[in-house]
């Protein structure tokens, strides 16, 4: 939902300079600032602090400052390494490749598609996006299950049944996330494509460029800012996916779909290691923070 970063792009010209912001005039900012300070900044500071303690979920009375012990534990733990790899796989396959490429392909194809077909495609793709993530999780675990639609379809064409949820659960959840998230990229790219001047593309065709050449040399370069922004946003969204994976696999079997958010959750709540869990959360937060900063740079708000 981080989507709609815009509205009223053109600022109306003002005849007078606006008045200076005094503390009194800034008063309406107070409720928002208070909420953000207490419920967003607060948890982040708490996170930074408790990541260096051995806080436990139960018997909460005593805890000690343990320095970097939680981080040493993370970096030397095979499970942590594994969850980083699964997070990478999930992000690259489902967001950067899946949603991004499929979204772009759909946006491009829709320009040339039949009107009815276009309406149908955007309805189902956006429909999949509007469905809550828990529901998407259930739909796909039914689809991939032993008696699910996938094996039904495979049987029809004479292929052996698969159990992706058991053999390659991370692939199964990645496919589900592509299904659920592609609409976002499709909408971003459709809007961006509608602003590519038609005559430039047509000029390229006059100069003898084929469809592929036109796409690579003209259309995609003109979209590069939208592509950069979209990649940042879907990466951030995918890094924080929890409900979808939790309802499909709970991170299993044998942790084979445990991404970082699930690993942090399990450590904190199922193994009661709140300190260690917050250390993991802090790492995830740092990664998210870095991506968020890059996102700010791609927006280039700097000038005004």
């Amino acid at each position, binding site marked *: 939902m981080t989507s709609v970063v815009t509205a009223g792009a053109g600022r109306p010209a003002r005849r007078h300079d606006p008045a200076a912001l005094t503390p009194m005039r800034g008063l309406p900012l107070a409720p928002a600032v208070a909420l953000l300070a207490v419920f967003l900044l607060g948890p982040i500071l708490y996170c930074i602090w408790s990541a260096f303690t051995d806080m436990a979920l139960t018997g909460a009375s005593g805890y000690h400052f343990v320095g970097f012990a939680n981080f040493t534990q993370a970096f030397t733990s095979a499970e942590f390494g594994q969850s980083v790899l699964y997070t990478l796989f999930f992000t690259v396959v489902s967001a950067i490749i899946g949603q991004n490429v499929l979204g772009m392909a759909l946006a491009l194809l829709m320009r040339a598609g039949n009107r009815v077909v276009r309406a149908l495609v955007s309805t189902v793709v956006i429909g999949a996006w509007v469905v809550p993530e828990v529901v998407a999780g259930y739909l796909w675990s039914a689809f991939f299950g032993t008696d699910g639609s996938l094996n039904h379809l495979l049987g029809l064409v004479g292929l052996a049944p698969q159990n992706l949820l058991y053999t390659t659960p991370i692939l199964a959840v990645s496919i589900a996330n592509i299904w659920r998230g592609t609409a976002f990229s499709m909408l971003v790219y459709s*809007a961006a494509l509608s602003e590519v001047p038609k005559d430039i593309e047509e000029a390229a065709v006059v100069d003898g460029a084929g*469809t592929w050449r036109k796409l690579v040399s003209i259309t995609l370069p003109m979209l590069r800012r939208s592509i950069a922004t979209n990649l940042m946003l879907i990466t951030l969204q995918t890094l924080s996916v929890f409900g979808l994976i939790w309802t499909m696999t709970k991170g299993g079997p044998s942790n084979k779909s445990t991404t970082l958010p699930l690993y942090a959750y399990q450590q904190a709540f199922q193994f009661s290691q709140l300190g260690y869990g917050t250390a993991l959360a802090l790492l995830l937060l740092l990664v998210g923070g870095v991506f*968020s900063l890059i996102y700010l740079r791609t927006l280039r708000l700097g000038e005004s």
Partner: protein
Amino acid sequence: MSAAPAVQASRPGAAGAGTAVASRRGRGRERGPGLVNAALLFVALCYLVPLLWLVLAAFDPSAGPSLSWPARWSVDNFRAILTEDITFRPMLNGLVLCGVSTVLTMVCAVLAAYPLSRYRSRLKRPFLLTVLFMTGLPITAIMVPVYGMFVQVNLIDTYFGTILFMATTALPIAIWLAKNFMDSVPAELEEAAWTDGASRAQGLRRVVLPLMWPGLAVVALYTFIGLWGNFFVPFVLLLSNDNLPASVGIYTFFAQYAQVVYGQLAAYSLLYSLPAVLLYLALSRRLGGAFTFGGGVKG
């Protein structure tokens, strides 16, 4: 929005096939549309199978996990889950949680947007950049520390704490959007109201807000849909069964059975998805098409 030019381009054969324009549109066009439509239909089909299962299984009393046409259509699945404990209370809880959070978010965002839009200050830009930075932070990451914090201050399993937190998660993007919408309302209109003796608060209420109402409605609907679909926040912050909203209720209800009753699961999923789908339809109708949204991300 994007539709208008694309519609014309999509029918090369329809108007004057032999003209210069048509031939300039180029090679590949002749066999193009067929292939393009086939590819699009294939994607639509892949998307449709899980969604179709949801609808068919909901009305099939003996539904399995695989897509199949119901042998007998019935509303038995709905009848089974339409009880206070399973459906009504979680739905109502979700409505209260997300509704109150949305209202809180919108009030705070509009209040904050006014000074950000109408006064000048050196602190404004860093503040706005911080807000934009916050929109990108993965909320999932801070749920573990939020839980720890809520336990210490006794806010765990309370609506008060959960609503304040949910409102906060939606606040950064709401402030950013409200500020941009407010920027697009010309200051002259407001100044005219002041000349007529209106105070700043009256100017905001009578002049600025009515003009940005459509934009605010979009933000509010978006906020609500986002919160309605959120599973992790209430899953961590609310503990007792009576407090759970639909997003978590569906999970706890079906997690207690070893054997999933697929028809009921589908029926529940359908009911739970309905508010989000209806609100989205209202939203896209208001905007005259979904495409306007994406325009967003250009910054």
